[in-house]
């Protein structure tokens, strides 16, 4: 029997990067399908609030300036050739989105309006109120419906399959609704499965962000890169860690400590609240640690922006503050604190999404591509600028899609037996058959998340990271024994959560491994035992491969510098 599912290109994930990649591959003539564990419009791209950057020349902006701001924001760890592509192609992609139907905010001339965002000298962030990600996501899904591309909806991918030559041959996945496994054959697989936020607790990320894409690529032999670079967003709510958009500060909101001082004056006298995120998060944490916080938070003050502006341009967070913090943003400041938000690291790709190709030689897995937060080019280096992630998804989603279509034309359909899915099917059956016990997936997830947040947060040191590294094997042991009480085949979300936990543990291991390896402070990776950036030894990326025994193995790549030599970073 052969699988009824055979495609040129299979995209894992239906967020912005995934859908953009699928559409580009479709335009490139490939037979494309998308596989996603949630309905496309429920993807986490929804949560991107503030906007999308582009330097449009007809506004007097220069893409080189955007690129420079991004390089500086990355603390010089970003690869400048990739950043140049991001900045240069941004305008084209913004216009393509507008032509597809995105209702960007307009200015009085009837043209697209911009707002300011952190780490950038100019207002070059295009936006849809404060739900830009959602507005883009829905429009890309509209285009997907128009193109009538097949979507494996609510399917969970368990492995990337390679043929005997080591080429990517598709994925093994099961349909959550029926619990049925299938091998989905594809010449090329694009992983666009989003980030790993839930590895930390709390996190701004949705509960679905469990690093699945990174983990299955890593298990299949693809290297991960910059995994130690984890962004803490400066404005998240206490408790669940919900995000308050940077657009609030972009529109002029202040950060204030318990003494009523706009403390950013002392940390970033020029850019103030709009310094890059790593800088602002560290400043807040210092204020809190030194006793100038309020119950573990500082305050974000929007009052002076006025009711009208808040409701027009920050409507979603106005509602969010009311619903989840019981605060009227127009009347009182809101307590916020730094919270885990984004993974700069991910599956190492080249500028066409390949994992990863050096002059025709795939150093990663041939036929495997990645885009979006799952991928690491590296664009964002040590710290991502706000509103560059949405741009990343559309520019490099598109490029990965186009390249994968061309690649698929150049290779034959892989020959792999359908029995390839047996291994994962058996693994799941064994998981379901485990004898009952007191430990739960939820308990292990919580222990993992709090460990990571405690030791791999805004400030890190050897002792703490070592503690985390010592805790992880115990969590993995527990995961290897934990039972699933729901034995059913239909919509078994307990099973999904158990499998996700396995992915999260792999991600956590690489994060800790990368962080311990990097003996300097750069971007979001700030070590109190190595407080200086060390360009002499560490102006390089840490690649992590998975050894056959499952342990991580490091490799290094120099940072690609085109025009901007590293300088002291001051905001």
């Amino acid at each position, binding site marked *: 029997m052969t699988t009824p599912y055979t495609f040129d290109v299979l995209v894992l994930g239906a967020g912005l990067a995934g859908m953009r990649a699928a559409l580009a591959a479709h335009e490139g003539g490939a037979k494309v399908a998308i596989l996603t564990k*949630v*309905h496309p*419009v*429920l*993807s*986490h791209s*929804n*949560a991107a609030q503030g906007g999308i950057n582009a330097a449009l020349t007809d506004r007097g902006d220069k893409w080189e300036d955007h690129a420079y701001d991004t390089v500086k924001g990355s603390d010089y760890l970003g690869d400048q050739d990739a950043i140049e592509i991001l900045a240069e192609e941004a305008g084209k992609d913004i*216009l393509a989105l*507008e*032509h*597809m*139907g995105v*209702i*960007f*905010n*307009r*200015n*009085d*001339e*009837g*043209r*697209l*309006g911009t707002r300011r965002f952190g780490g950038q000298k100019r207002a070059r962030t295009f936006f*849809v*109120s404060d*739900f830009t990600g*959602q*507005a883009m996501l*829905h*429009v890309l899904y*509209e*285009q997907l*419906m*128009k193109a009538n591309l097949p979507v494996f909806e609510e399917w969970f991918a368990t492995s990337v399959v390679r043929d005997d030559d080591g080429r990517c041959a598709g994925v093994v996945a099961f349909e959550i*609704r029926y619990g049925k496994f299938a091998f989905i054959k594809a010449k090329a697989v694009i992983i666009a499965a989003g980030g790993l936020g839930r590895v930390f607790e709390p996190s701004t990320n*949705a*509960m*679905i962000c469990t690093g699945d894409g990174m983990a299955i690529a890593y298990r299949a032999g693809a290297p991960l890169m910059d995994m130690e670079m984890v962004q803490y967003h400066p404005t998240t709510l206490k*408790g*669940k860690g*919900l*995000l308050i958009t940077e657009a609030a500060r972009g529109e002029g909101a202040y950060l204030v400590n318990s003494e009523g001082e706009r403390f950013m004056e002392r940390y970033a006298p020029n850019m103030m609240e709009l310094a890059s995120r790593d800088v602002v998060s560290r400043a807040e944490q210092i204020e809190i640690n030194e006793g100038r916080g309020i119950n573990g938070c500082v305050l974000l003050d929007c009052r002076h922006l006025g009711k009208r502006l808040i409701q*027009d341009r920050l*409507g*979603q967070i106005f*509602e*969010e503050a009311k*619903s*989840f913090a019981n605060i009227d943003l127009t009347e009182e400041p809101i307590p916020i604190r730094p919270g885990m938000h984004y993974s700069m690291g991910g599956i190492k790709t080249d500028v066409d999404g390949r994992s990863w190709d050096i002059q025709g030689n795939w150093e990663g897995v041939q036929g495997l591509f990645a885009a979006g937060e799952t991928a690491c080019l590296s664009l964002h280096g040590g710290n991502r600028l706000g509103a560059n992630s949405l741009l990343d998804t559309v520019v490099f989603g598109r490029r990965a899609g186009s390249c994968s279509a061309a690649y698929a034309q150049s290779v034959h359909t892989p020959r792999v037996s359908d029995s390839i899915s047996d291994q994962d099917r058996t693994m799941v059956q064994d998981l379901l058959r485990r004898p009952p016990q007191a430990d*739960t997936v*939820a308990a292990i997830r919580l222990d993992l998340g709090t460990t990571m947040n405690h030791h791999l947060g805004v400030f890190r040191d050897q002792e703490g990271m070592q503690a985390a590294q010592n805790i992880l094997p115990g969590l993995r042991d527990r995961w290897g024994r934990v039972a*699933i*009480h*729901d034995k*059913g085949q*239909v*919509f078994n*979300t*307990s099973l999904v959560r158990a499998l996700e936990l396995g992915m999260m543990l792999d991600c956590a291991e690489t994060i800790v491994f990368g962080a311990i390896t990097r003996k300097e402070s750069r971007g979001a990776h700030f070590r109190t035992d190595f407080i200086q950036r060390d360009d002499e030894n560490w102006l390089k990326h840490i690649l992590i491969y998975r050894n056959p025994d499952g342990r991580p193995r490091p490799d290094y790549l120099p940072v690609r510098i085109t025009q901007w030599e590293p300088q002291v970073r001051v905001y």
Partner: protein
Amino acid sequence: MPYFQEFTLETEPSDTVLDALIRIRESVDESLTLRCSCRGAICGSCGMRINGHAALACKTKLVSLESSDALVQVEPMNNMPVIKDLVTDMGGFWDKIRHVQPWLQPTGPTPDAEYLASPESMNHLTGVMGCIMCGACVSDCAALEVDHQFLGPAALAKSYRFVADPRDGASASRLLDLNKPNGMWDCTRCMECIEVCPKGVGAMDRIMTLRAKGIGQGVPSTCGSRHAEVFADLIEQKGRLDEPMLAMRTFGLGNIGHILSFLPMTLRALVRGKLPKSGPLHRAIPGIDRIRRLFRYMRNST
């Protein structure tokens, strides 16, 4: 057969229904099944009925629920098949969204830069773009409950988003399609979709605007559009709602067969004393001039 199961748990004042459900799932019954993801009323996964009305579990505080015995009843959304516990099959929901061809259909060449459009003509659309497709409006739609073919509030609001977009060139054909049976005239204006929407999309208001735009563009008259026109005309003529005349003129005075089919119902109403005392056909109320002046004023001012 579906059944209810009761769980007892301690709660905090800040807890949402989702917090409570997750706590049940994590510490009492792992098999409790629901969709949930963002926890912040952004993704639209956790639509369900809470104490009889559709809502997002993550946005509903337990303390906001009026119940004397502190019992909160959660059910899967209505008007769609149930898969398991609180998870429904949204396939039919999306089929209806797809029916309205929900993508921008511009006419003419694509401009080199963005489409030019005034902020007034565009920025208001963010209200309807705020729809997160959670299904709450469809769950509680009274018209859908009796007519599964009705397009429903979510699809109609989605269609409005294109009809009202100055860049879209297909609004005439869109309105013609919505003018057909199961389209915009099938809404019974019960307002439930407005009540339950967690994002303030106001689907019913959008449907009413679609109707007005349809009439404005001269779509072929239907029972629905005649109902609206005759309603206004009767008020202007008589100052009150003349229900029998409204029905007759809506279906067309020439449509004897259809009008006669109302006879049994009319007789039953008569027997039960539900016909107005003034008889089947009303006269104009005293002071009708003042009402007609209002109509003239409205006409002149628009």
